């Protein structure tokens, strides 16, 4: 990255949920206009727009958004990287600022999923073949889901969880405690899709989706958008003191993909790329896990969050089960994780997620998180991972006060 730091001066997210009366552009426009207001800017100030969206990736939503809120001729990039889509949009806006192409970048993540059921939980319907014949890269004669194990998201993250559990002695109840925590956290977040507490017993005994994850241990689908406005050091100095005072520094922004491992050829490896990204982010920021006051990590399933305690070095190696037992990742613990309610309860409109977690941490670092505020938060980390694989880790710091 070039000389100066890059700062977030505007951040916003819509409530997450199901909004039948809003189209994708309405959601994106709501978040964007609010982020611009937050930055005390208009579209006239913006030099690049990066828009992340998964399900309608080739509908050119960046340009659709411009047509509704401001056509100024700037470069627009539509980007998609599974559940890391929003974070990828942020990184592209950052790259343009770091490359000196502009001093002000806008990144927007949006998803309009409606009620699609479980994320990645349903295979596409296919016409039944009458005569077997090999197809595709595996020469498959029929669909492999359910026949040669499972490759759907709930199964992938469940198996990633049991791999860790078999190696480190984690119990199904310990996984359930993750969901208990995040649902409890969400009660304080007015932007969350669900705001309902569950007892550990309710979670353990709920419908089994993919062992060990029961229904409240799986994130819902939903609609939502989030946006951030980024500026260079140089630009920051020219802004109003009220904007500067609330600016949050991006101390590290790292993206990785899945490096070759023996097992990732049959089951995505969600650990290695997260570890690579986290380690690089800590090194770039000159900070370590002990410095974090707040963490928003990618709890698409309860098993995933537990793994990432270890991948992000929040706990001792192999000690993620003990970590959740200790209460340390609760809002009043020493390493609050997913105070927003996380994907499990705040919701997971795919394209929005990697921008919304920046909004959450920014809001705490500004001391503006209301009832859910982590008091005195100065350093925060965000993490997302999408399959097939992209991982992004950001470390943010509050400005000197």
């Amino acid at each position, binding site marked *: 990255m070039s000389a100066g730091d890059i700062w977030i001066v505007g951040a916003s997210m819509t409530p997450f949920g199901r909004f039948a009366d809003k189209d994708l552009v309405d959601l994106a426009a709501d978040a964007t206009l609010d982020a611009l207001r937050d930055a005390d800017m208009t579209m006239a100030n913006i030099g690049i727009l990066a828009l992340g969206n998964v399900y309608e990736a080739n509908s050119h939503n960046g340009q659709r958004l411009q047509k509704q809120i401001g056509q100024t001729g700037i470069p627009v990039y539509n980007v998609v990287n599974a559940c890391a889509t929003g974070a990828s949009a942020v990184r592209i806006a950052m790259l343009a600022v770091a490359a000196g192409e502009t001093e002000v970048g806008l990144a927007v993540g949006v998803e309009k999923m409606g009620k699609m059921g*479980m994320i990645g939980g349903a295979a596409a319907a296919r016409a039944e073949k009458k005569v077997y014949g090999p197809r595709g890269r595996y020469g498959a004669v*029929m669909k492999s889901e359910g026949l040669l194990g499972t490759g759907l998201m709930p199964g992938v993250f469940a198996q990633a969880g049991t791999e860790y559990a078999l190696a480190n002695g984690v119990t199904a109840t310990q996984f359930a405690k993750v969901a208990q925590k995040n649902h409890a956290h969400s009660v304080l977040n007015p932007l969350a899709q669900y705001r309902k507490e569950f007892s550990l017993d309710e979670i353990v005994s709920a*419908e089994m989706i993919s*062992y060990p994850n029961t229904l409240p241990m799986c994130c819902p689908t939903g609609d939502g958008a989030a946006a951030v406005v980024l500026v260079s050091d140089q630009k920051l100095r020219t802004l109003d003191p009220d904007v500067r005072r609330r600016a949050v520094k991006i101390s590290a922004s790292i993206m990785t993909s899945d490096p070759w491992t023996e097992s990732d050829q049959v089951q995505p490896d969600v650990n290695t790329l997260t570890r690579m990204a986290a380690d690089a982010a800590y090194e770039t920021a000159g900070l370590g896990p002990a410095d974090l006051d707040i963490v928003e990590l990618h709890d698409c399933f309860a098993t995933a969050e537990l793994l990432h305690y270890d991948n992000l070095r929040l706990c001792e190696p192999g000690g993620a089960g003990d970590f959740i037992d200790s209460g340390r990742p609760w809002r009043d613990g020493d390493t609050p994780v997913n105070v927003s309610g996380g994907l499990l309860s705040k919701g997971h409109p795919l394209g929005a997620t990697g921008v919304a977690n920046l909004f959450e941490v920014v809001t705490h670092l500004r001391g503006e998180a209301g009832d859910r505020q982590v008091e005195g938060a100065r350093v925060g980390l965000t993490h997302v991972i999408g399959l097939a694989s992209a991982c992004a880790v950001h470390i943010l710091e509050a400005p000197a006060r």
Partner: protein
Amino acid sequence: MPRQIPVVEYLALGDDPHLTSHACRSCGALYFDRRNACAKCFATDFDTTHLANRGRVRAFTIVGRIKRPFVSVVVDLEGGGVVKANLLGVDDPDAITPGMPVELATFVAGTDDEGTEAIAFGYRPRSDREAQPA
């Protein structure tokens, strides 16, 4: 006996059903799919390798919310190779232990309109002496 076809090309049928793999000539990395190059070392030449039928469970899940729940496992094969398949004959998660030894088994997955049987594979627990966790 009806004509049989494997559900995937990396399952070899016959008297001794087993899995095959493309092995990178340069680094030995194993792949089940048709390849453009090696994702580990970027070489483009591959041999076909016969994989072991025995292995140990690395990871599992039980997929619910469907008509016939099934157990999915990731298996580390003896001598190298990792594969995903169904675990056969087990439905209790507590019965699955770290490094649980398993062995390949084949079964008929379906029959098409010409009477051809599609043969799939899965893994069954094995309990012989060598099977004690290392």
